């Protein structure tokens, strides 16, 4: 992480929805900087607008207020340099693993031979070699998530947004995927914004943790995690941070 270089600047972002006849604020005046090649975790209880924030950054939603700057320039809507890892279900069941992974490049109009080569590289990186022709329904939850990660990497983004990617996995698979994503990130450095509601996962993965308060979502605290990687969740320092964060976290309803 290079603290001198701000990759993404989130400036005073607010998002609200009209529900019935009242206006509900999902997130309110959220501002923070994301540094280059940083693994930034956004942590918060359910319903605190973490996903909304990510959708705004990914260009899926238009915020009611605030601005986003990528490399100092304002961005509006979905930007090519930002890629998203969705929840498990976002793999297209009618496409094979290979076709899912190369989807972004296909949209860009990259020719078949080139995009197959690039996609293969990332399929290998997430250790799915040999499953290129499988359909998502033939894969386990962890494998599907790997496809999602490979798909996001393949379009060669500068920033990766991950929305509770491991939320639907069982505990064992979740641990191994956390290790995996960390390895992948160390091999292929990108700026990652990772949303989770799991404190341990946040401390295990994050260079920094942005803790959000419950609705309307606001930034409550930002933690720098300076522990060496790979981290050990039994380490006294790890546990101390965990306790601190845990006591500061709002309970979800």
């Amino acid at each position, binding site marked *: 992480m290079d603290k001198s270089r701000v990759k993404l600047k989130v400036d005073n972002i607010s998002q609200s929805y009209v529900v019935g006849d009242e206006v509900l604020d999902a997130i309110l005046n959220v501002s923070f900087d994301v540094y280059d090649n940083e693994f930034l975790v956004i942590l918060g209880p359910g319903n605190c607008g973490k996903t909304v924030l990510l959708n705004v950054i*990914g*260009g*899926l939603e238009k915020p009611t207020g605030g601005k986003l700057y990528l490399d100092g320039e304002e961005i509006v809507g*979905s*930007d*090519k340099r*930002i*890629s*998203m890892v*969705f*929840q498990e*279900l*976002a793999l*297209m*069941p*009618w*496409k094979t693993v290979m076709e899912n992974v190369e*989807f*972004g490049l*296909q*949209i*860009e109009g990259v020719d078949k031979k080139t995009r197959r080569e690039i996609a293969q590289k990332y399929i290998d990186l997430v250790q799915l070699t040999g499953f290129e022709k499988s*359909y998502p*329904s*033939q894969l386990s939850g962890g494998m599907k998530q790997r496809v999602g990660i490979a798909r996001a990497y393949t*379009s060669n983004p500068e920033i990766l947004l991950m929305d509770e990617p491991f939320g639907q996995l069982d505990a064992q698979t979740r641990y191994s995927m956390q290790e995996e994503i960390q390895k992948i990130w160390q091999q292929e450095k990108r700026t990652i914004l990772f949303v989770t509601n799991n404190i341990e996962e946040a401390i295990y993965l994050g260079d920094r943790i942005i803790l959000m308060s419950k609705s309307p979502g606001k930034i409550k605290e930002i933690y720098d995690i300076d522990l060496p990687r790979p981290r050990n969740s039994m380490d006294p320092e790890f546990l101390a941070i965990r306790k601190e964060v845990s006591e500061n976290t709002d309970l979800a309803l």
Partner: protein
Amino acid sequence: MIKDKMKNMNEEEKRRYRLERLYKILPVISIFLLILLWSTVAAKSDFPSPKETCDRLMLLFENPIKGKNIFGHTAESLIRISIALLFNWTFGIAFGILIGWNKKAKALFTPLFNGFRAVPPLAWIPLITIWFGTGEFSKIMIVIFGSLASVVVNTQAGMLNVDQLYIDVGTSFNANERQKLFQIAIPSALDAIFAGIRTSTSAAWMVVLAAEMLGSESGVGFLIVRGMDAMDMPLVLAAMIVIGLVGALLAIITQYLERLMCPWTRVESN
């Protein structure tokens, strides 16, 4: 042989093996029972027996009606539904995609289409006959009217049910509207579209018979009417059996086609 095969199996495997054999035999038994029942009834009344029906079918080869044997008449009917279905699949799917994807088109066409859909295909026959006569064109027209709705309705439903999540994936990769339609929405609606293709095929096969029964010189529907006019019950029965067999065959073919075109659905059912 069977004893040899079963020797090396444990109890559970044996049980499963026997069950599987039973599942294969049961359909044969039901057909056999039907023929038995039919023969018994035929022996005690003047209802034609299976053998008479079969003989009547064979006689058709020596003594064709209007110059065609049973294959000729079946082919005539199949050609009619093929032309109608080709039209329906082209325009019906296109129209279904339009009113499933485009909100304005949906609002514009839905009332008209619902009205059209509510009129049963048989109700069109008098109008079409008065207007276009009883020629080939009218019959194909009747089949088109009778099987268009299921294509459109299924396609539209498929397009309306495209998961927003897949569209979001498209947005996040900067797909334009055209790419979202052709790369995401249509493929994801493909199984619904195929459901439309399947139902329209069986509907077309039913409607073509009705069309042929009302003034025609060929086709299996014509054979039935000819049998009725001539009080030739074996011919009526023979035609009915052929109709049933062809209908079942069409269902199998469209199902096979679906598996061929949507390989991922095959994977899921395994």
